[in-house]
């Protein structure tokens, strides 16, 4: 019936082209938008995964509950009714037994590298400018194995931080705000204790403004000294061989330990939920376009079936079976779906190619072009959506055509 189906489609050129256009646009939109959104997501995920850690083990921050101090003050038996209940946070936000973790991770084959860190809030001052920032103290060699920071350096070498000597690298945004330069000197203080001079030996650009504007890296002993907490660490950043396993591993560690263990995606649940929202928007938009196109197919085929009643009857009288008639109309929908899917994928690919050349703000390693994903799965899915919406839309009219009783039609036409 392919032959006749094609003839039918060609005899209604304008309708067919219009419907085809609908499917093509729907598919192309899906491909282009997916390429763009997934590109964006890949970029962000890349940033999250590579700039921080696959898994972060950090001290559990313990907020003080209204009754958590009762025992300390009044002994175990007392029933206390506070006028103004104590609140705040326990100060010792440190990992209590780092050896428990390091010994364990040394034995685990999943772990590629780990880096012990002391993370603390600091005030950075240069001349009269002061900024709050986050200072991460680590062993730079280990830190470089855990995160991709080396690739994002604009000036200086990350590992030149060494293992002591008050050397730091800072985000280029912070550098600019302070009016500092490389090399140069800034003063760091943690609020309590002494302000100390640090030498800026490098700067980096991660492409995430929040980080570039407020992050400093230094050597672990220097930071411990500045903070007045020798040999304490607050975090352990872990890199796995396979990032996919991060969530599962983090969850299992979390149960076993008194520290907080989070995989990169758990730590960034907010961003992940933005992605989910994006996916929903993307899918529902595409689906609505294709529903419209599907209705188009449904409509024109329905009309064609009504219009071609006599011809259906005559085909049946010649010995064509009900299934042949179903095939005749179903084929038309499928042709539109396949053609629309293929052209839509090609068009979507073209749009992606063009978008990939659009220059956008400089973003460190990502280069300065829009990141577009050309993952084949997008195209396969786009095609399947087009194909199935067209098939489903043509199935109902086709079935109706197959059920038409030829004799009733002939009778009504012939008398």
């Amino acid at each position, binding site marked *: 019936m392919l032959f006749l189906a094609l003839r039918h489609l060609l*005899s209604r050129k304008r309708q067919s082209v219009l419907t085809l256009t609908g499917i093509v646009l729907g598919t192309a939109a899906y491909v282009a938008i997916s390429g763009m959104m997934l590109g964006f997501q890949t970029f962000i995920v890349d940033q999250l995964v590579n700039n921080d850690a696959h898994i972060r083990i950090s001290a559990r921050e313990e907020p003080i509950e209204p009754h958590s101090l009762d025992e300390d003050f009044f002994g175990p038996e007392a029933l206390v009714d506070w006028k103004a209940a104590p609140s705040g946070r326990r100060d010792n936000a440190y990992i209590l037994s780092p050896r428990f973790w390091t010994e364990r991770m040394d034995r685990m084959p999943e772990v590629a590298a780990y880096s012990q860190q002391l993370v603390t809030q600091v005030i950075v001052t240069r001349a009269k400018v002061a900024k709050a920032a986050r200072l991460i103290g680590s062993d730079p060699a280990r830190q470089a194995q855990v995160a991709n920071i080396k690739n994002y350096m604009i000036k200086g070498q990350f590992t030149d931080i060494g293992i002591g000597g008050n050397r730091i690298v800072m985000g280029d945004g912070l550098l600019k705000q302070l009016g500092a330069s490389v090399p140069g000197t800034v003063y760091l203080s943690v609020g309590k204790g002494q302000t100390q001079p640090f030498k800026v030996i490098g700067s980096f650009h991660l492409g995430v403004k929040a980080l570039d504007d407020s992050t400093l890296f230094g050597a672990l002993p220097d930071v411990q000294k500045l903070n007045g907490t020798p040999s304490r660490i607050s975090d352990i950043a872990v890199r796995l061989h396979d990032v996919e396993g991060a969530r599962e591993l983090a969850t299992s560690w979390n149960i076993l330990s008194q520290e907080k263990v989070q995989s990169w995606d758990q730590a960034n649940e907010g961003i992940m939920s933005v992605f989910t929202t994006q996916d929903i928007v993307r899918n529902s938009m595409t689906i609505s376009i294709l529903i419209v196109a599907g209705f188009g197919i449904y409509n024109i085929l329905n009309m064609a079936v009504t219009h071609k009643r006599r*011809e259906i009857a005559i085909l049946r009288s010649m*010995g*064509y079976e009900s299934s042949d008639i179903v095939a005749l109309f179903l084929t038309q929908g499928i042709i539109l779906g396949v053609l629309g899917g293929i052209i839509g994928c090609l068009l979507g690919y073209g749009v992606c190619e063009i978008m990939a050349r659009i220059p956008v703000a400089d973003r460190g390693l990502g280069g300065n072009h829009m990141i577009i994903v050309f993952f084949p799965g997008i195209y396969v899915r786009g095609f399947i959506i087009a194909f199935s919406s067209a098939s489903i839309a043509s199935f109902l009219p086709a079935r109706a055509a197959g059920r038409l009783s030829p*004799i009733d039609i002939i009778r009504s036409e*012939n008398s």
Partner: protein
Amino acid sequence: MGILLTDIRKSFGSPPTQVLKGISLEIQEGEFVSIVGRSGCGKSTLLYIMSTLDPPSSGTVLIDGQDVNAISSRELHRFRNLKMGFVFQFHHLLPELNALENVLMPAMKANRQEERKAFAISLMEEFGLGKKLKSFPGQLSGGEQQRVAIARGLVMEPRYLFADEPTGNLDSANGNAVMSLFRRINQEQKMAVIYVTHDIDFSKMAERTIQMSDGLVLS
């Protein structure tokens, strides 16, 4: 072998009104038969039943010894495709196909269009359509369209040709042409032709006339 109808009844609607009230008759192979009677007496209904397009409410239809009620739908369609041709008052050509393709539609179902092509062309030449093979139905006159439809009915060289008022829509010249075509095919190919007509002259061309009245066969 031929067609054998036994006590055919057909009712329509609810409450059922009987349109055919017990008809038994036989049509021999190669016969040339007309069916006549007043409008509404059941001629078309009878023709559709004997041509397997419509099942009777009761009674049996044997074609070439086979009970059409007892065979599968697939077989029935094959049967129609290979053994029967139809011509209706309205030609029902497929407007997307040219004349030759229309004629070859039954052959396409049997996947024999190449094999039947030469025959289709010779039929059409014989019907004075030699120059119109590639014309589309919209470019043909009513008479030409009807001749294309007849060629389509004959392309599989069926054993039976059923025609319901084949000349009803044609002027007398075209009507005459169609009837003499029928006659010739009947004689040359020994194909049975069963046609319903309101035209007395055309009915007289038949070897046998089935006269109907109010759901019964008079003679």
